């Protein structure tokens, strides 16, 4: 068989092109695999914050930082507690010194003294990642380094993240930050290493007042799920369409 140099080159380029196509594009699933691929997970994690129970002790923030190896004195945190003080003149004073890591032991807000007699209401609001159904942070990731697991938690792949910061800008809740040590995006993941072992997240475990609770929303017998389903709960920034899965009891209109 004769083969000219031209034909040889032509064919080898063609062969290289065809062989570089990913094989997975042609995989045909068996029936079992197809069913497994579309079957819903039996777990969908959610979270309930009862703002009426939070005393602002900040133990959750401390526990979170220790548990998840977030540098203790760096101005970043996966969860934080905000204090709202509404005074009789209609003003709302908000602060979260060190994210509430050391609790709230002084009545001063941003070095401003507030006379207790002028206060209409005061409350604490813990915040964390909402593990959205439609996470804006995942949509914008250019490299596929952040994703939603089958049980609804959004994770960050530290080996894959290039640290571009798009997700930090995209999150409407401001829960993402740049990890000072790993140089990648970081965020609350409901303590994924704990909840997958049947433990509670560190913040839930450390809360003495039951203000923070974890729920499996696919389990109708879960007591926390029942509260979320039967009581009047609210979510943060509903208007963004992200479908957050952290639910709040007693959420005030001043909370943004």
């Amino acid at each position, binding site marked *: 068989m004769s083969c000219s140099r031209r034909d040889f080159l032509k064919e080898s380029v063609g062969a290289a092109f065809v062989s570089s196509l990913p094989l997975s594009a042609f995989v045909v699933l068996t029936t079992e695999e197809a069913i497994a691929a579309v079957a819903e997970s039996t777990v969908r994690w959610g979270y309930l914050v009862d703002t009426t129970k939070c005393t602002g002790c900040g133990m959750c923030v401390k526990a979170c930082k220790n548990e998840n190896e977030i540098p203790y004195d760096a101005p970043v945190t996966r969860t934080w507690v905000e204090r709202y003080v509404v005074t009789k003149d209609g003003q709302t004073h908000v602060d979260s010194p060190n994210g509430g890591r050391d609790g709230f032991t002084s009545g001063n807000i941003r070095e401003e003294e507030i006379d207790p007699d002028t206060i209409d209401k005061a*409350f604490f609001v813990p915040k964390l990642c909402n593990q959205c159904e439609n996470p804006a942070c995942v949509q914008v990731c250019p490299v596929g380094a952040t994703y939603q697991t089958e049980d609804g938690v959004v994770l960050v792949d530290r080996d894959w993240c290039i640290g571009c910061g798009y997700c930090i800008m995209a999150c409407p809740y401001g829960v993402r930050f740049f990890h000072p040590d790993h140089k990648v995006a970081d965020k609350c993941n409901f303590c994924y290493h*704990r909840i997958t072992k049947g433990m509670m997240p560190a913040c839930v475990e*450390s809360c003495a007042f039951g203000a923070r609770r974890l729920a499996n929303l696919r389990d109708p017998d879960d007591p926390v799920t029942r509260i979320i389903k039967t009581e009047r709960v609210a979510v943060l920034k509903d208007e963004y369409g992200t479908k957050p899965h952290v639910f709040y009891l007693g959420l005030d209109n001043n909370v943004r």
Partner: protein
Amino acid sequence: MKRHVLHPLWVAIGVVGLILFARLLLVPDDFGVHGESFTYSYYRLGNIEEWKNFPVKYQGTDTCLECHEDNAKTHRRSPHKRVQCENCHGPAGNHPDDVEYLPLNKERAMCLRCHADLGYPESTARSYLPAIVDRHHKRRRECVSCHDPHDPREDAE
């Protein structure tokens, strides 16, 4: 078509082929769409396992009770029973295997997290807790020198 017009085309195809070949080598096998949605489920499957293997530090009160029965007994009948051990004693980690003694936080600031009087109205959860005004009550003394933290109704030993 003339040959000199076709040549750059082969070069371009070659470059694309090279990039695809490099991608084949560099991208891990488990990287792809794992789930229903390309938008949210395009990732490296092995990362889930990596996160699951992240070390646990807070072991929970039940683990502490396995050895520290005495303190647990006092603690469990006190108003402080809702406060878990590791909040004050620090995360257990691999204690007692790696760390023999846990650093105990006895600071006044620790107690003030809950027991500082901020003068907030009754609708605040905080107002139900016994509280002191920091600058009026035994300034700068450690609370635990008078109050037993395991059962605050008792005097410290």
